């Protein structure tokens, strides 16, 4: 029983990341009709915003420590962060420690800008082109972005830790009456799940309860009619591209303590997130979220030793297997609407 609860918990944080990326993918597809293969790269860029902020906060000057020597026997040059000398050692250390949550504030404008440049600079020229062209150009863009990140940050994963306050793990088992240490779950993964729930709730509330959101939804349902009513729907859709980029970006920022960022993390998530979108139903926002969590949890269960010993390699194929079964039984996905990508 405790193993099952653990795998559900594991699936929740993985599912949260899938859901957040798939939500953005669906928003872009639903509004602009673009299949954006560069969306995983936006998740990766978000993660590197956190890395960048951590590096900025850790910018230091050299101080010679005459009592210690470096590997060549010269006096050791100690790096002292500027924030330590500006705000005092305690505040400086706190800022560096909390760099990941603080990076969200930086990531939102950065990602909106990246999204805007991507959409206006490149993707808008491909609205009227076939989906194959869109996939090729966005896939190419994703490769360019990841090579750029690799050029500046190197190929190795970069540890970006959670604040010390969230470093440990929670004894979830004892809350549910299990023996101590039977279900341990890192605090930060719990934070990630709650954060994802808030972001997803926020996006839905924005679309549901604001006039802007209402117009966007109307545009998604019937772009032409909304246009005929004199509303500049294109401008709003561009803003939605920015919003989707920001969602992917903050998802990436918060994921850094779970998975040390590297340049190809976006591509790893992209393929699975596309499966999530297809399983959820192309163009369906609730479908993307539900499928994200569903597939995350299924993937965790498939990694259990008991299941792997029954069907070797199942952890690698479970998502695709489920996708095939769902598409055979429900060709439009779990919550897909008629007419999407069927014209």
């Amino acid at each position, binding site marked *: 029983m*405790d*193993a099952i609860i*653990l*795998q559900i918990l*594991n*699936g929740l*944080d*993985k599912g949260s990341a899938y859901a957040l990326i798939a939500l953005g993918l669906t928003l872009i597809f639903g509004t602009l009709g673009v299949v954006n293969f560069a969306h995983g790269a936006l998740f990766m860029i978000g993660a590197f915003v956190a890395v960048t902020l951590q590096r900025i906060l850790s910018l230091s000057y050299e101080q010679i420590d005459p009592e*210690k020597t*470096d*590997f*060549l026997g010269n006096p*050791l040059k100690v790096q002292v962060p500027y924030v330590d000398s500006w705000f005092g050692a305690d505040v400086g250390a706190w800022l560096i420690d909390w760099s990941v949550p603080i990076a969200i504030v930086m990531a939102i404008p950065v990602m909106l800008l990246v999204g805007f440049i991507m959409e206006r600079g490149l993707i808008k020229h491909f609205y009227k082109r076939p989906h194959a062209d869109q996939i090729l150009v966005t896939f190419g863009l994703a490769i360019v972005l990841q090579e750029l990140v*690799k050029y500046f940050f*190197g*190929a*190795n*994963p*970069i*540890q970006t*830790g959670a604040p010390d306050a969230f*470093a*440990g*793990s929670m004894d979830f088992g004892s809350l549910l009456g299990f023996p101590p*240490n*039977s279900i*341990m*779950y*890192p605090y*930060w*993964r719990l934070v990630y799940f709650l954060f994802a729930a808030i972001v997803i709730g926020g996006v839905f509330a924005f679309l549901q309860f604001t006039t802007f959101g209402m117009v966007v939804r109307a545009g998604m349902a019937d772009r032409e009619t909304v246009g005929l009513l004199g509303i500049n729907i294109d401008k709003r859709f561009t803003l939605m591209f920015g919003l989707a980029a920001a969602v992917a970006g903050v998802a990436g920022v918060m994921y850094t*303590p*779970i*998975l*040390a960022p*590297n340049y*190809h*993390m976006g591509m*790893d998530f992209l393929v699975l997130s596309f499966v999530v979108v297809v399983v959820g139903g192309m163009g369906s926002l609730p479908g993307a979220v539900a499928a994200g969590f569903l597939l995350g949890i299924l*993937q*965790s269960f498939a*990694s*259990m*030793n008991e299941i*792997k010993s029954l069907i070797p390699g199942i*952890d*690698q194929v479970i998502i695709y297997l489920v996708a095939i079964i769902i598409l055979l039984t429900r060709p439009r996905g779990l919550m897909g609407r008629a007419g999407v990508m069927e014209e």
Partner: protein
Amino acid sequence: MSKSNFTRRGLLKTGAVTGAGLALPTIFTSGAAAFTNEPTGDTVTFGFNVPQTGPYADEGLDELRAQELAIEHLNGMGDGGMLNTFSSKVLDGTGVLGKKAAFVTGDTQTKSDAARASAKSMIEKDGVVMINGGSSSGVAVAVQGLCQEAGIIFMAGLTHSNDTTGKDRKANGFRHFFNAYMSGAALAPVLKNAYGTDRRAYHLTADYTWGWTQQESIQSATEALGWETVNNVMTPVGAGDFSSYITPVLNSGADVLILNHYGGDMINSLTQAVQFGLRDAEANGKNFEIVVPLYSELMAAGAGENIKGVYGSMNWNWQLQDEGTQAFVKSFGEKYGRPPSNSAHTCYVQTLLYADAVTRAGSFAPCAVAEALEGFEFDGLGNGPTLYRAEDHQCFKDVLVMKGAENPTTEYDTLEIVEQTPVDQVMYEPNHPMFGGDEASLGSCNDGA
């Protein structure tokens, strides 16, 4: 009026025949070469095949730095580095056999097919006499096979799988780096002292040649101590999130987790194991422990605080105090502003060993070089007295047992040396079952051409 007998067709025919006639001596000349890419000018070209892109690119970069330094030292530039401490004194800084050493580089991308393609291109287009470097056993085995067919010497870089000099050993291939069996043999006594003989181990293993042989070696070494192996779970290379593999560990009855992972996988799996509270946990009335059998400095720096107190092993470390190490660290440190990694060291040493063997053999011919390397005993290159064993082309030398440092002062001293395990303790027979048994054979040396 005269009529010309020249026609376009006739001219082409004559041209073709004349061309073939002129080319004939060249064909004979190239056929007359005694071995593949016999150097004829005043330079000799080495091929450095390292990952310049992909997940091990940082390690590849460090290998290139070291190889470039080795070329400088061979050509008499810089302070000479380990040439001053090497027990063999035939290299005098005037190049190799009177020819200036030059190099070209290839990008393995840590993919076997890409590595073979770049090695092939260096052999065919750049005329290299040897290939050196690399950072993966899958790649090493693939390139070693190619060099054997082409008649080129392959000096392996960082490759730790038993197979490289085990079942996949080749007459033209040589490995200076240690292997998984040696890691197990060196680590076992230290683990016994630190954690006792009554332990239950759970393995997470990268699902490819290196992971398999390392797991087998560590399991065998720890079971010989009396440890029990609870489970061995294969994980896909580059899995990223290992949480679903880690969570069952605590309730499996195990009290030690052994991570047979390398590079980014090791950074992620170790970090996540610590996040899930494994290092703070207790199991079977003992503290839960984590072991990472193969360490590298770049990985250790990547894993940050999580490696504190975690045991592992290495081929060499810049903190060693012998003369050879100090000469190399000084040379490398002054040129690049950082201490060399153990993959950089092995590539540097392999370059010198090759040049030395050529000089002693008096020839670049692969079979002559191989003969000079086989059974060669040397010292002064950082690992103490070392033997290049003739039967399998594996170097035998002391192995380092390392531990994550409690209080590192810089990003370079995140690991500390716990013990220098003497070579006798990591020796094995050439026909050891983990190395292909009696069937494993080097085959015959190939001069190519």
